[in-house]
C-alpha cells in the first residue's frame, strides 16, 4: 500500500503545474514561481532516470501530464535522457505485454498523455515528435491500443491535427522525422493517407496553458495540400 493518498499526490502536482504555467511573473525570493516549478520537475525526473528499474517513472504515472505542463523544457530533457542508450529506462514503462496476465494497465499511457499535452505547443511539438518516434522504436507491443505510434500520428492528422502549428511547420517536422527516424516516419505517413482508418481519441490537452486553440478548423485546400505533400 502506498504511504500517501493519490489525492495528495495529484493535488501537489497540480500546484506545481499552476506555478509553472501561471507563475512566470510572480517573483518569490530570487526567482519566479515558474523557475521554482522547473527546478522541482528537473530534480524529480533526474531521480527517476537514476533508477535503472524505472520504478519511479512508473510510480509517477498519474501525475506525468501535470509535470509536463509545469516545466515543459525540463520534462522533455529528462524524457530524452530516459530514452538514451541501448536499454533505455523508459522501456520499463511498457508493462502490458503477454506476461502481464490479468493486468492491462501500463504506465506508458500516462507518458503518452504528457507528450500529447505538450504537442499542442508550437514551442515543444518538435521535441515531442522526436521523443514519440524513439518510443515507437522501443515499444515492445502490448495489449492496450494506446501506443506511441497512435500519439505520433495524431499530431499530423490532416483533418484534425492534434497540435496548434500550421501545415508548413508540420511538414517541416515530418521532414526531420524522415531524416532521423526513417522507418517510423514511413509508418506515420502511411497512416495519414486517405483510406487508412484512424482509430483513436482526441489527444490529451493542457489544463493550465493556452496552447490548444479554440475551434481549430482545417480548410479543404490545406487538407489537400498536406495529402499532396505526403504523396510527393
Amino acid at each position, binding site marked *: *500500500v*502506498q*504511504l*500517501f*493518498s*493519490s*489525492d*495528495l*499526490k*495529484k*493535488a*501537489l*502536482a*497540480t*500546484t*506545481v503545474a*499552476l*506555478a509553472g504555467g*501561471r*507563475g512566470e511573473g*510572480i517573483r*518569490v*525570493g530570487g526567482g519566479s*514561481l515558474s523557475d*521554482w516549478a522547473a527546478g*522541482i520537475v528537473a*530534480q*524529480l525526473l533526474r*531521480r527517476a532516470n537514476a*533508477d535503472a*528499474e524505472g*520504478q*519511479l517513472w*512508473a*510510480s*509517477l*504515472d*498519474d*501525475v506525468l501530464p501535470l509535470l509536463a505542463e509545469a516545466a515543459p523544457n525540463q520534462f522533455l530533457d529528462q524524457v530524452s535522457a530516459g530514452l538514451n542508450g541501448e536499454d533505455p529506462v523508459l522501456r520499463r514503462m511498457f*508493462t502490458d505485454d503477454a*506476461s*502481464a*496476465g*490479468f*493486468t*492491462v*494497465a*501500463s504506465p506508458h*499511457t*500516462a507518458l503518452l498523455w504528457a507528450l500529447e499535452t505538450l504537442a499542442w505547443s508550437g514551442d515543444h511539438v518538435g521535441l515531442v515528435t522526436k521523443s514519440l518516434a524513439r518510443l515507437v522504436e522501443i515499444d515492445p507491443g502490448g495489449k*492496450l491500443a*494506446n501506443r506511441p505510434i497512435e500519439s505520433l500520428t495524431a499530431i499530423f492528422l490532416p483533418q484534425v491535427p492534434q497540435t496548434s502549428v500550421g501545415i508548413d511547420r508540420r511538414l517541416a517536422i515530418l521532414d526531420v522525422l524522415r531524416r532521423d527516424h526513417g522507418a517510423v516516419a514511413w509508418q506515420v505517413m502511411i497512416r495519414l493517407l486517405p483510406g487508412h482508418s484512424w482509430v483513436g481519441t482526441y489527444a490529451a490537452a493542457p489544463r*493550465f496553458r493556452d496552447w490548444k486553440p479554440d475551434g481549430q478548423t482545417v480548410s479543404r485546400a490545406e487538407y489537400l495540400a498536406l495529402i499532396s505533400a505526403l504523396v510527393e
Partner: protein
Amino acid sequence: MLEAEGVAEGLAERLARAAHRSFVSFQREAAADGGSSRSWDTQLSERVVRRAWLAGAWVETRSGDQSELSALFGQDYQTARSRLEPLARGADPLFTAVGSSWTLVNVEAAFDYGSRHVTQLDLGALEETLQRVLGEVDPALEMPPSERWLAGVEAGCNCSRRI
C-alpha cells in the same frame, strides 16, 4: 442558460459550480475578474492556511498524508485542522471536506489569491514535501506485473491507477 446569454463556456461552468455551493459563492466568482476581494485573500495570508492551499487535497485517515502535512504546516495536524475547519464551512468556503477527504473548492481561483502571499519559506517546505510524496515508489511495482492487481485488492481498492 448562462451560455445562452453569451457567457463563455468555461466561465459559465465555473459560475454554475459556484451557484451550486451558495449565492454568495456565485456573486464572488462572478465578481472575481472585477477585482472584488474575497475572504480568501485574508485567509491565505496566514501561514497554515497558505500551506494547506499549497497541499491542495489530502485524505486525513491516511497516516502518510497526516504526517507529511504536519511537517508542511510546521505544527501538529489536529491543531492545524481546528484552524482549517471553519474554512470548509460558510457561504464561500476555501476548502471542501467530505468524510476524510479535503480538497480546494477551486484550485485556479485559490492560486490567484494564494500566489500573492506565498513566501520563499513556504516554497522550501513544499519542495521537501513534493520530493517525498511524488518521489515515493509504488510498492506494487515490486510485484511481478501479473500479480500487481492484487495490491489494489489488498489495499481495499486503492483505485488510483488507470489504463
